[in-house]
């Protein structure tokens, strides 16, 4: 952790993430207004003392909505990533450990899944599942699975030929002991790094799905949906698209920067 804080990217990333997590946990409580409450007189207003970041087309307070949307947006990112990374890693580890035919069959199928552009694949799945937040989360998780499986597999493969694993094999250790104690702990680094960076992708894809009407649905305060709902009004009040848009950007950037710093910290080449 100290290593992460030392690099400027890591520091900025950590600060951004801290803000994001603060907002996620406390945002709904500190919000000055009910995120759904109308203020018909102040529709589409710019920032003012009354509404710090302005209001949307119903006169709902953008600041409160943004704060209120944080938990669902962040939870979406974390949930989808956790699910995708979890399942992907299991598949990848199985492929990497089993090797041989199992490995090549799994890899061929994963290649097939990876041959579709990520968003396209997500779209198909989410349409198949019928739209909505949970469905979108599942879809993103499924989309992440093949990529994560590959990373997990290559990570496992690179560890599997290390000499300490060979030594354990030569010693006659059981397969499960080798996987659990020698391979996994050392293969975890790249997986964690990738997962962190993927959270930002998950958030962005989730927002995109919300935007396309396939993710969160009104009256949710999910940020992507907020952009979609008020896009019509963007020329009348740019704030109503800028606020949620920048919220997404800041969150994604936080995870990105933090992930990069984490990668540097894990990278033996850069650490002394």
């Amino acid at each position: 952790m100290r290593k992460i804080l030392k690099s400027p990217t890591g520091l900025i990333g950590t600060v951004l993430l801290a803000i994001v997590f603060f907002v996620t946990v406390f945002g709904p409580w500190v919000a000055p207004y009910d995120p759904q409450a109308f203020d018909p007189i102040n529709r589409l207003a710019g920032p003012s003392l009354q509404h710090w970041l302005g209001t949307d087309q119903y006169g709902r307070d953008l600041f409160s909505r943004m704060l209120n949307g944080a938990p669902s947006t962040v939870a979406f990112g974390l949930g989808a990533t956790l699910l995708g990374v979890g399942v992907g890693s299991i598949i990848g580890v199985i492929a990497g450990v089993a090797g041989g035919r199992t490995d090549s069959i799994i890899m061929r199928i994963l290649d097939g899944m990876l041959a579709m552009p990520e968003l396209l694949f997500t779209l198909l799945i989410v349409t198949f599942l019928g739209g909505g937040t949970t469905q979108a989360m599942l879809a993103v998780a499924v989309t992440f699975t093949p990529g994560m499986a590959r990373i997990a597999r290559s990570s496992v493969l690179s560890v599997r030929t290390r000499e300490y694993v060979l030594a354990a094999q030569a010693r006659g250790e059981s397969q499960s002991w080798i996987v659990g104690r020698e391979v996994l702990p050392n293969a975890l680094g790249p997986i964690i790094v990738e997962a962190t960076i993927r959270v930002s992708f998950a958030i962005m894809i989730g927002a995109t799905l919300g935007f396309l009407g396939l993710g969160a649905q009104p009256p949710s305060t999910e940020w992507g949906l907020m952009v979609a709902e008020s896009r019509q009004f963007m020329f009348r009040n740019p704030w109503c698209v800028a606020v949620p848009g920048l919220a997404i950007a800041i969150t994604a950037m936080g995870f990105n920067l933090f992930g990069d710093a984490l990668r540097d910290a894990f990278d033996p080449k850069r650490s002394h």
Partner: protein
Amino acid sequence: QGSEPVPGGTLKVSHSTRIATLNVLSNSGPAEYPCMDMLYSGLTRMGFDNQPQPDLATEWTANDDATEFTFSLREGVTFHDGTPFTADDVVATYETILNPDVPSAARSVLTMVESVKAVDDLTVKFTLAAPFADLPYSTAHANARILSRAALEDDISKLDTTANGTGPFKLDTYDSARMVRLVKNENYYKPGQPYLDAVEMMLFPDLAAETANFLSGETDVMLTVQQADYERIASSSGIEGQQIGAGRYVCVVMRQDQEPWNDVRVRKALGMAIDRQLMVDIILEGLGRPAYDSIVAPELEFATDKPEIAYDPEGARALLAEAGYPDGLDVTLIASDRPAIRAQAAIVMQQTAAAAGFNLEIRTMPHDTYLAEEWMQGDFYIGYWGMQPTIDATYNLLLTSDASYQDTEWKNEEFDSLIQQGRSTANPEERAEIYAQAQALELEDKPYIVPFFEDVLTASRENVHEWSVAPISRFYFVEDVWMDQA
């Protein structure tokens, strides 16, 4: 602003939904209707006054009990390919419309037609199974346009991409992804018309893009203007906005064979718990009128004035308590995500009804899921309907016991028989009386909550004259449109 029409010019009309098919029998897209109106003619055609006008039929007569109609056809009309138009084409068209094996949208308003016969080359006779005074309205149905027998006997799927009609314009290019181009029909039956050389229907799926292109002068007409943009667009220089009072409405479907909607007091309470003016202001940006729980638009013939229902959360709460829900009511309101107005209506309802003890949880779902799982099945959802030409058509669509889309399970024999009477009565005063009773029944029982009627909004550049949209937005009379020539 010259008053004498000048011929020539290409009218560029922007629209935001695809012209997915040219099949006049079944299409229903907002941008498909103007194309149909330009490419084809029907026996009759709805005017801006909501009355049937002569089109290919120059005049019509009915027998006394309104079971037989005779239409005299216009002479010397030819299809775009030059073949002459005769009574036989009319017969072929109506036989196809009535054929249950062919999907056709007009069939639902023509179910009473028993047979269509050509009396001679320029006369057809409709025989009805039951009296139906509004037949000339039905023949004006946007999907009941006359096709040639040749086209109908050919592969019917060719209708999707080709058109051989008798309308003022001929098909030139059909590219559903971008543009449909129509050119002047030199042999149109109105002499000297159309004035325009061509019309280009240009697709802009993104509203922002469409607006920007219209404002910058790339297009001449914006077929549909969104409420959010109307003021800005209409007030731009060189642009004329049109706000046409019409009968498109959102309705709240409450299945009346289900708790709690089987109790009229609950329905009434919900009606009082809705701030209709707020909805008009926020959702329609003021471009519409509050409606008071009747699906009959004020524009329709025989429409009665509906008493105003004020926003009265206290009263609603009391009524709800009376109905056995003193602690309020938790219900889930379903809204499809398309068009956005459904979810918007739900959101405003949720906010205003909360004060009356209605805890509405909104579930917005993709339109396909909605169609497959909720529509006609769910017990509390947001419906959205276009204007129908007559009270009869309006009620037969939704409220009579055998209506096409009976989604409320509100069945009232008295109401049914009134509608039936209205059909067979030719005398206008009598009909007015009958329809007034029917509307009173509707108001009393409140099968639907109808919060507002939406105006039709369109806009054109100043150099475009006579651009207009009929309230039921299926008829455009583009042959009358002309442009100043630079």
